[in-house]
């Protein structure tokens, strides 16, 4: 139960603290205060009271305002006190978009300090700026109507040239900056789309391979069944490759048919004279090579080619036999 020093909010205490003579009697005072129940047990800490008094002289200010106010018609002053214009739908949409974007940004980057939307300084900034914008909008609509009533032209004609507040070079810079930002935004959007596409493509590919594998497995199973005799028919082979009907133009088809009839169609053009597996495995015409000693004699005898007439006769004979 410590009682250090306490600021008493009674008038007596304040008076005592100001005068030095009663400075030592603060303990007694504290005791008194404790007895009265102004103090509660516990750790009491000294509160530094701000002694400065802030001035707010309302009457003087009103007086001053009356004295220096200019009583001129509105057209000389152009001041308005107005509430912000109602929220335009496109502004509301922009606001919503900003909120969504900000939420996404915070979700995407955990390194950023995470705020909830009511305390987010970025969103607050945006809301504040839109508020100023709306106030200006309200003022513009109000003022233009008033000026029109007074018969004052407001819009500058297109061919009225005068010095502007910002120079042409500066405006050019601004435009370039805008363009650059736009291109950056476009590029990032494109990249994002590409990334998305790639992701989707990969997924599709994986799905396709999985499907292919599944079909193959199914087919093999069916084949196994057939081989073991659990299946009799080979229908599964048919329905797998069901030909897709294509709509063909009749005229084109007829033309193609004609050309096929005229020039021939189909078949492999290349490699028709090369060995195939079947041809190379064909050993019907194979003869065991003769012994090296006999080679000259036998070969000489057998390899002798008959004359042209004899050969023709032989051919004719063969044909007759057939």
């Amino acid at each position, binding site marked *: 139960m410590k009682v250090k020093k306490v600021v008493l909010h009674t008038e007596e205490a304040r008076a005592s603290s100001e005068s030095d003579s009663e400075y030592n009697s603060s303990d007694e005072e504290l005791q008194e205060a404790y007895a009265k129940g102004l103090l509660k047990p516990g750790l009491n800490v000294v509160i530094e009271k701000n002694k400065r008094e*802030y*001035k*707010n*002289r*309302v009457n*003087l*200010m*009103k007086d*001053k*305002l009356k*004295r*220096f*106010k*200019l009583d*001129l018609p509105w*057209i*000389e*002053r*152009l*001041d*308005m*006190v*107005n*509430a912000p*214009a109602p929220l*335009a739908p496109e502004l509301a949409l922009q606001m919503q978009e900003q909120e969504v974007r900000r939420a996404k940004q915070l979700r995407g980057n955990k390194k950023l300090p995470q705020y909830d939307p009511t305390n987010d300084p970025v969103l607050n900034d945006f809301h*504040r700026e839109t*508020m*100023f*914008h709306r*106030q*200006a*909008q*309200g*003022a*513009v*609509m109000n*003022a*233009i109507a008033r*000026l*029109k009533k007074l*018969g*004052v*032209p*407001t*819009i*500058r*004609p297109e*061919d*009225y040239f*005068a*010095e*502007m*507040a*910002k120079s042409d070079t*500066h*405006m050019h*810079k*601004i435009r370039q*900056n805008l363009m650059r930002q736009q291109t950056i935004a476009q590029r990032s959007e494109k990249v994002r789309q590409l990334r998305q596409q790639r992701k989707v493509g990969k997924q599709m590919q994986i799905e396709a391979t999985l499907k292919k594998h599944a079909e193959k497995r199914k087919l093999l199973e069916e084949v196994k069944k057939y081989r073991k005799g659990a299946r009799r028919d080979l229908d599964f082979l048919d329905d797998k490759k069901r030909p897709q009907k294509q709509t063909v133009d009749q005229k084109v088809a007829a033309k193609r048919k004609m050309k096929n009839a005229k020039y021939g169609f189909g078949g492999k053009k290349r490699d028709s004279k090369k060995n195939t597996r079947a041809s190379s495995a064909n050993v019907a015409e194979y003869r065991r090579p003769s012994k090296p000693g006999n080679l000259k004699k036998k070969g000489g005898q057998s390899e002798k080619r008959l004359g042209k007439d004899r050969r023709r006769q032989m051919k004719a004979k063969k044909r007759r036999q057939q």
Partner: protein
Amino acid sequence: MTKKELKRKRTENLNKENIPQVEVLPPKRVSDEPPPKKVKWINRQRVLVFATRGISYRHRHLMDDLKTLMPHHRSESKMEHTKNLQVVNEMCEMKNCNKSILFEGRRKRDLYLWFSNVSVGPCAKFLVENIYTMGELKMTGNCLKGSRPLLSFDDNFDTKPHYSLLKELFVQTFGVPNHHPKSQPFFDHIFTFTVLDNRIWFRNFQILTEDGGLAEIGPRFVLNPIKIFADSFCGEVLWDNPSYISPTKFRQSLKKNTAGKYINKVQQKIAQEGSKPKESYSLNPLDEIFKGEPLEKALELRQKEIKEVQDNDDKQKKVKKHSKKQLGKKVEKRNSKKKKKN
């Protein structure tokens, strides 16, 4: 018959409607029009816009922007720092100005703005925060140099007397006088003053379309009011901002916060070490007897016991030796005494 009458009545009505329509001036003026007669401007405001020494470049740019937006300004070279700003009144008189905006830079980073209605008062001092000049590239609007701005104020400016006082001051300083020779006769931008968070936020928008299409021109700044004086750069204090904290004090507090960090850390470490228990958990030493191979454990225990016994023996021996020595001494003493007696 009836039909005819009806028709006539309608035409009469139409005529009546047409008559009261006053010829409306077109909103646009053609540039070939003969120049209108020069009208003398009634609202003769001249504002002295200048700075003290020690403002930074950004503050200077802001001042230049205000100058471009105010055709009724007069410029003045930079002023030395003086304790008494009443010199400004004399300067204004010399320059024939009845308003003044003084940029007072401190420490090369803080900017204070004085708005004053010279000779009569009042005068207000502001701290300027969040400055964006017109050179900023994100402000895309533009306006004629010297066209008259519309001045839009928040609702708050009517509620409190000091705000209404400030409003009048702003209207007189920022408002470009009608028919001012350097001004343009069109309305293409608007100044907005908004009270938010005890501060006055200034924005400048270009009017793109008359139905509320806007683009920001700049500059942007926030005025944090500090004091309002009754006279120009002197006199009684009419109002004091209770929520104002000077930038130096604010920076000091930030520094203090960071300064306490290390000490706090060290203290915490010491406190933690002091309060840390030596044993994480009070274990019963007998619990470990039945852990592991019983035979090995038994051997270990046996060795430990032997060691303890040996240690004890050594100690006892030492004690015995010591006592023996002492006993020997005593015996010698006694013997010597006896000898002496004899």
